[in-house]
């Protein structure tokens, strides 16, 4: 049964390579986008830390900034 599933009447190489290529492409794209996301988020946090109290207060007043800061605390 297992050998039959792998071999697929001689078409196994084509079928498995097509599915593997698809899943590998998905994984690569996910990792690339995730790296970009983490990089931008870390850049934001390091910039935020350099702000003085007055500027930090202004930055915190914006919804998106609040969300980025709160999500970084949970990581």
């Amino acid at each position, binding site marked *: 049964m297992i050998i039959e*599933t792998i071999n697929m009447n001689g078409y196994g190489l*084509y079928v498995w390579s097509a599915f593997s*290529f698809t899943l590998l492409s998905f994984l690569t794209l996910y990792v690339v986008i995730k790296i970009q996301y983490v990089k931008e988020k870390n850049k934001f946090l390091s910039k935020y830390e350099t*702000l003085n109290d007055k500027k930090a207060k202004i930055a915190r007043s914006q*919804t998106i900034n609040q969300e980025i800061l709160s999500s970084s605390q949970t990581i």
Partner: protein
Amino acid sequence: MFKLLEPNKIFLITSRAPKFVIALFIVVLSIGLLEALILSPEDYKQSHSVRIMYVHVPAAWISLGIFSSITLLSISGYIFKNKHFFLISKSLAPSGLVFCIVALVTGSIWGKPTWGTWWAWDARITSMLILAIFYLLYLIAWRIYRNKEQVIKITTLITIFGIINIPIIKYSVDWWNTLHQPASINIMSKSTIHSSMLLPLILMSAAFALFSLLIFLMKYNTELIKLKNKGLERL
């Protein structure tokens, strides 16, 4: 209506949604793979090689759908002067390109046992390759042009030229003699595909759609944080 699409309101949803989308994607993909690779029957003519259809067809559908959405958003953004539409378009493009490449590569793998060749300059394959080139041009334009107004004009032009190719891809099998068979699934008329093959195709299409949604959300959040980084510099 456009106020509902403001980044401040949307980010509350888009920043939390990926974890739910990824969970749903894993569930749907697992069921889809089980159906596509094991439970669905082999074809009487193509035998097990028909299973490649379950990754090839959804990838092609979604890459066409994403390019059409990018064009619609770019033109709407240009007409209504809404820059947020361009941010959504830009975030959709990476997954569109990957789906287009997946459709081309899996199509090539499918071509070898079915037609006896990895590649043919057939109307549909060539027009899909042209679509991949348009995706590349679109993404490169966003990378090389720094001026916002300029990049908006150029990317909109790329999508307008690229959208001409979409009906060519769709109807190439009817207009020319190609190696591809005519469409088996029709919304307007009865589909010619058996339900035992339609189910895995729908499941894999749903999984691919969820994956493109996941990538879109992650890319969109990244772009918004990038904008906020610039905002912090201006404080």
